[in-house]
């Protein structure tokens, strides 16, 4: 049988992919939150800087050709609200410093338009954000461009942005953990129908050829349909083979039965011993071929069923007694008594009752066939630690002195039984049945008196 190796797991693959997606989404979330928060913080700072610059700009006036700037307190205090920040300002008129720190760098395009311009620069060892607000101011009869520069260090902003980053990272990790857990549940949930199907296929024995499932997720339907079609075909084919074997036996044996019957009738009416002898040989040949045909077909049937064991819980003692009952009329013809002894406990074996009956029947058939009249056949059932043993002891001619190993081979027969009809398949069938059940067949001499002891050992259930 081909062994299927597991390569990868669908469940793990699905889970890993979901986790990867969750990780990417978590990172995206982290970056988005961070960028947006930073932007929001910068905008806030810019707005305050503009408000401050506007307040200063509005406080500037021209008086007698002079530019006067009274920096209002509020203009700087609104900036000071952010802790520990340092604030710088500079007012220029046509690029000449009017008041403030005259080394505070002006943004490159401190445009003339009246629109504020922002820049970030390093000033006095700190990063500062500079807002420049230009304004036209008429001084005397000339118009100058008055530019108010307000700058603030970004220490606070860095702290805020760190905080935001931490919060964003926490949100990202939280999101990842949550989606990881959800992925796990989702994977399990998605795999459930598949697991259920796998279990139900596994639970059924190899002989169960009924359809697997009547409903399944869409994706599994084609697979199940093929599986069910295959099962149906297999079981139909097995049934056909069984039928064929049974029919074949019928077609071979029926004409032989007629030959035998007619010869037997003729045997009674002829007087001459040589004619009687001829008829006896005809009957013997008919018996031989019917027995061979029967055993061959039984052998085929046994092989078929062994591949496809229908196991049930069996009590070997009951089974043995059934077989003994069916065979005792034949034994009675030779005044052979068959006794059955053994433990009254269950002697339970798990197996195919038809096959095991057939095996035991073959052994008893042999025993009856090779036993002399007025003898005894003992069937003894004993239980070992994990086995059930059935011994069939007869008082017949025994196994002979020849090589015994070929007795269970196909068509192998003992050297001392040429005068008795046999196909040489009986013990082969027994051996095949027993090994299909994980047991063994042993042929030894009957320890009590001359004769044979055939022992079946089967694993107990």
């Amino acid at each position, binding site marked *: 049988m081909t062994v299927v190796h597991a390569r990868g797991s669908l469940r793990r693959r699905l889970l890993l992919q979901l986790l990867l997606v969750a990780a990417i989404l978590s990172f995206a979330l982290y970056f988005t939150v961070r960028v947006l928060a930073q932007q929001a913080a910068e905008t806030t700072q810019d707005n305050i800087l503009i408000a401050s610059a506007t307040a200063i700009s509005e406080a500037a006036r021209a008086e007698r050709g002079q530019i006067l700037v009274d920096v209002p307190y509020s203009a700087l205090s609104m900036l000071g609200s952010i802790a520990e920040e340092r604030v710088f300002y500079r007012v220029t008129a046509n690029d000449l410093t009017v008041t403030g720190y005259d080394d505070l760098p002006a943004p490159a395009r401190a445009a003339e338009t009246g629109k504020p311009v922002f820049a970030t620069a390093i000033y006095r060892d700190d990063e500062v954000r500079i807002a420049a607000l230009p304004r036209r101011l008429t001084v005397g009869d000339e118009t100058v461009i008055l530019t108010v520069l307000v700058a603030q260090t970004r220490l606070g902003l860095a702290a805020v942005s760190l905080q935001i980053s931490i919060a964003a990272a926490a949100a990202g990790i939280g999101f990842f953990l949550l989606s990881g857990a959800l992925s796990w549940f989702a994977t399990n949930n998605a795999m459930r129908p598949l697991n259920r199907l796998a279990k139900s296929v596994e639970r059924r024995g190899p002989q169960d050829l009924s359809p697997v499932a009547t409903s399944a997720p869409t994706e599994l339907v084609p697979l199940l349909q093929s599986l069910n079609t295959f099962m149906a075909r297999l079981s139909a084919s097995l049934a056909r083979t069984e039928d064929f074997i049974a029919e074949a*036996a019928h077609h071979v044996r029926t004409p*032989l039965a*007629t*030959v035998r019957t007619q010869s037997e009738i003729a045997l009674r009416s002829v007087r001459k011993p040589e004619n009687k002898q001829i008829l006896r040989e005809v009957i013997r040949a008919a018996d031989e071929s019917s027995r061979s045909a029967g055993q061959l077909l039984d052998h085929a049937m046994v092989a078929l069923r062994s591949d496809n064991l229908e196991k049930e819980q069996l009590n070997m003692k009951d089974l043995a007694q059934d077989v003994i009952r*069916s065979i*005792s009329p034949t034994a009675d013809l030779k005044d052979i008594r068959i006794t059955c002894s053994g433990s009254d406990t269950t002697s339970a074996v798990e197996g195919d009752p038809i096959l095991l009956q057939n095996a035991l029947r073959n052994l008893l058939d042999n025993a009856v066939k090779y036993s002399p009249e007025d003898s005894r056949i003992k069937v003894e059932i004993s239980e070992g630690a994990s086995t059930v043993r059935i011994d069939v002891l007869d008082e017949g001619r025994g196994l002979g002195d020849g090589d015994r190993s070929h007795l269970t081979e196909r068509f192998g027969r003992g050297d001392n039984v040429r005068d008795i009809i046999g196909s040489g398949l009986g013990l082969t069938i027994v051996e095949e049945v027993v090994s299909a059940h994980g047991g063994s067949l042993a042929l030894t001499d009957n320890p009590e008196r001359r004769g044979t002891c055939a022992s079946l050992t089967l694993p107990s259930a």
Partner: protein
Amino acid sequence: MRFLLIEDNEKLAAAIVERLGLDGHVVDHAPDLETAADCLAGTGYELILLDIMLPDGDGRSFLEWHRTCDNDTPVIVLTARSEVSDRVRMLDLGADDYITKPFDFSELEARCRAVLRRRQGAARNQKTYEDVVFDPLAGTVAVAGSVFELRNRELRLLEVFFSAPDMIFSKSHLVDRLFSYDEEVSENAIEVYVGRVRKKLQGGRVRIETVRGVGYRMTAT
């Protein structure tokens, strides 16, 4: 006893009818299921011999029908099909026994006897001659009140003699009835069994007489 044989093979059927007739049984032969149903409606039978493949149906469905009718007449199935699977199935369907064609007539007789013994006890088929009561189902003979067990061949010998008291049976006829064809026995072997039966009949008013040059007969003294 009255048997019903349902078998479509005419030659085999004729041989069975003749052979069972030798034991004093009346055998009605039905070649198909329809005839069989008519026979069963008309008379009661002690035993039915049923073939499986019949021209107008399957013996198995007949068996099922027979059992659902609450008819408990024992049935022995005659079949030529493979034994492995069929045998158990037949017994499950309610057959009492099963014999595979081709069969030895002695085996058929033995199986009929075993089934009848199992199903109806021995009381109904005792044969009495003078002070000897022969019971083939129980396998016993009672001579002037004392009962003896019979060995198989002794039983068959008495069956022959009781089927026609006072009639002379040749040695070769007795050999045919006592031994199956493949046992090559000289006609003198019969003397052994006649001797044993004579011993059991001692003390009664029945004896087995040697008719020199012809055979034996059972007669009253």
